[in-house]
């Protein structure tokens, strides 16, 4: 039940794009076409999940030597950037087709704030300790991975909804001043309002 709460929360209630407004640049930039939106969504799911895992490990290492508070962000950024670079190399070697499909998106994700967002959110939510509100090491690890996975799924959901609407929008008579990005932001507002309906469910 706890795991369902985390997963459902990350996808719908605390959707990274539509409720937390993280990662808006790829959301607006890559949502013109459904195919590229799906590619970006898949890349984000993968990186967010893996980044949750590695940053949680890094967080535990920092806790262990007692330097977690002030090194957290710089270490997370270093870990995520190195990790994305490493993943890019592996994907290029192992699956050229996937590399071709992800294209520029994979390196772009390095600077996607949703990824750093999920990393910091994980260590804020799943504090390791023995208190009533605190998590065991293993529990926190898997909860982080789940939150990363579902955060990515929520991102992809928002991307797909948005790209479907923007593809329809191509054939509609949008006023000239609103064409392109402005109307995309208006649509984002509508989507965010709709997702507001999920708040309070958990």
């Amino acid at each position, binding site marked *: 039940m706890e795991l369902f709460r985390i997963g459902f929360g990350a996808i719908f209630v605390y959707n990274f794009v539509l409720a937390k407004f993280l990662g808006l640049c790829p959301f607006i930039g890559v949502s013109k076409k459904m195919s590229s939106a799906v590619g970006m969504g898949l890349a984000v799911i993968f990186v967010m999940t893996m980044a949750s895992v590695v940053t949680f490990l*890094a967080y535990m290492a920092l806790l*262990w030597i007692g*330097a977690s508070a002030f*090194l957290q962000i710089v270490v997370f950024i*270093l870990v995520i950037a190195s990790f994305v670079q490493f993943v890019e190399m592996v994907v290029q*070697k192992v699956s050229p087709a996937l590399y071709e499909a992800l294209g520029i998106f994979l390196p772009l994700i390095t600077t996607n704030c949703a990824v750093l967002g999920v990393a910091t959110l994980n260590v804020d939510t799943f504090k390791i300790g023995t208190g009533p509100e605190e998590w065991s090491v293993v529990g926190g690890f898997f909860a982080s991975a789940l939150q990363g996975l579902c955060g990515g799924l929520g991102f992809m959901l928002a991307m797909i909804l948005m790209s479907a609407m923007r593809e329809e929008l191509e054939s509609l008579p949008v006023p000239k001043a609103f064409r392109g990005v402005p109307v995309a932001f208006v649509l984002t507002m509508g989507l965010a309002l709709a997702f507001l309906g999920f708040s309070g469910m958990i």
Partner: protein
Amino acid sequence: MTQALHLLADASGDVPYIGAVVVLVLIGIFFGVLLYVGSRVFAVDVDPRIDQIADALSGANCGACGYGGCRAYAEAVVLKGAATNLCAPGGDETCAAVAKIMGVEAEAAEPKVAVVHCKGTRERAASRGSYRGVADCRAAVVPGAGGGEKVCPHGCLGLGTCVAACPFGALVMGPDGLPMVIEQLCTGCGRCVEACPRGIISLHPKSQQTFVLCSSHLKGKAQKEACTIGCIGCRRCVKACPAEAITVTSFRASIDDEKCTNCGTCVEVCPQGIIWSFEKARASYKKPDPKAASACAT
């Protein structure tokens, strides 16, 4: 290791920044080594022919081949089997070099040159005022900017946007206010074609010598009022052409380069004198007499 880290944590109590520095350095070294090893283990072999072709190409990144720059074209040739003769600026030499790298027979590409389809000089084209806006054709055609000085809505604006766009210096603004193409320098990359907001520049094979040098779709009377040399769509050339290479669409004649034999019949019959033969123009151009020049020098 554990002990060392705990010692480190203790030491950071005495010298506050040591622990942070050491941790960051360790993490940096770890990822540096990881990425180095990864780049070696997961190195992808890139076809060396891509680099060779990229070197052989002109390097102008003009995009005339239809790809985003010379390197993208080189990749397309090697990986996607694109044609080897698409490099217009490089000409036959480059195309042959690319074909040689790929090990295929060179297919000769007919080089193209840009032709400006307007002869509406200040004397010929009627004026409707003076333009004092930004000196750029694209600015002059913005709605509300007036659309240039000429009455003819298809005439050359004469502000030199094409001249600025040419990466090879093959376009110069002539004294008559119309751009001139220097054929020896023109590589047929098509930058000027894209730059011209009126769309009066087009590419033609170098062997093509006969052109309708007007882009105007105005009807006969309006055309005569706008410009003394504009095409009025009278269809005399269509009837006269033995090769059936000329068509008139919306009051403007155009010549099909593939069918045209450059016989010059249309040049003779055109009542407006807007069909020009570059060959004859060249033949009638007299080279400066070297004797006269030497006489001048002394």
